[in-house]
């Protein structure tokens, strides 16, 4: 246990098993799937309420997201991986003209498209991952389209970079 806490990385095999059991644990303890789109939707609405000076109550699915933030912080501190970074390393390597303008735009647009896609699809990737454990066929369709497309675009972009 201490070894897992202090190690910088655990194997993908162990991670896969742990994630599967966490999904199942959430279904047993909370009797709901975690990471659903409602949590993010509520966050967006409540951010507006806080901006207007109101203090909204917090629900369990928002608490789950706060838990992720805390868990990530603890893991980074325990593994001595915590490091404040303003820009990602792959953007930094392309120079200030890139990471100060284009890099920020790509992050913003990427985040927007990811969430827009999930809103249209019906739920988040995390929720679909949890549903995939129940062998829901339509979730498989989402994952296959998304993955194949991302591989195609990713490969084309990497080939373009190698050519340069």
């Amino acid at each position: 246990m201490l070894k897992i806490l202090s190690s910088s990385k655990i194997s993908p095999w162990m991670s896969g098993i742990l994630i599967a059991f966490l999904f199942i644990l959430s279904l047993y303890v909370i009797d709901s799937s975690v990471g659903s789109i409602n949590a993010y939707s509520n966050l967006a609405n409540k951010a507006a309420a806080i901006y207007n000076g109101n203090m909204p109550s917090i629900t369990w699915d928002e608490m789950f997201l706060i838990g992720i933030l805390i868990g990530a912080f603890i893991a980074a501190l325990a593994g001595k991986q915590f490091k404040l970074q303003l820009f990602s390393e792959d953007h930094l390597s392309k120079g200030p003209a890139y990471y100060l303008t284009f890099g920020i735009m790509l992050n913003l647009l990427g985040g927007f498209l990811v969430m827009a896609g999930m809103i249209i699809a019906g739920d988040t990737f995390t929720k679909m991952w949890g549903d995939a454990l129940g062998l829901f066929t339509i979730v498989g369709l989402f994952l296959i389209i998304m993955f194949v497309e991302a591989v195609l675009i990713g490969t084309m972009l990497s080939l373009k970079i190698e050519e340069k």
Partner: protein
Amino acid sequence: MHPLQISGNVKLFAALFIGILFGFILVKSALSNRKTFMDQFTFKDNSFAIIFFISITVGVPVCYFLTKYGIINLHPSNYRFWPIVVGAILTGIGLVLCGHIPITAIASFGTGKLYSLIVLLGMLAAFPVINLIEPILNDYVFGKPDPVDLNVLAQNSLFFQGKTAMLYLIPAICLVLALFLRLIQRGSGTKSKKKEET
């Protein structure tokens, strides 16, 4: 047996605890790194796919037996064919651009990567924009009739259709795929591992 029926502050605390465990594993498995997703799409590092396939391999049989004995209940969302197709296309493009899904962006922010906050802001901005264009989406995406009634399958899932062969076949296929991806991963030998450690 049935799922725990907790509510109020106990449920809040339970959700927080499960969230902490999730966040911890996301960081320790490097899923919170933007690079893990980016390298997956070019097959330089297959960690993400291996994690996904192994979770299916282990999770599907366990989930099936727990569901069968009423220990857990599945709560699928209301998915439909065309929204899934359009949504997957948009998500795929976004994923290549930012390298994050919502929970990994939160975990990444927790490890001090401040640029993930911009990704999260982009994600939150999607809600009002989708609300604005909802009438257009209703006409062209949500209102389109499904070619097959996939939702019936989604409600029942392969679990409840008596297709128990799938129960063993799909996890087995996922395990083979995970092993194959590990095999083709560049620098997967012990020598390169030792090199990484030093």
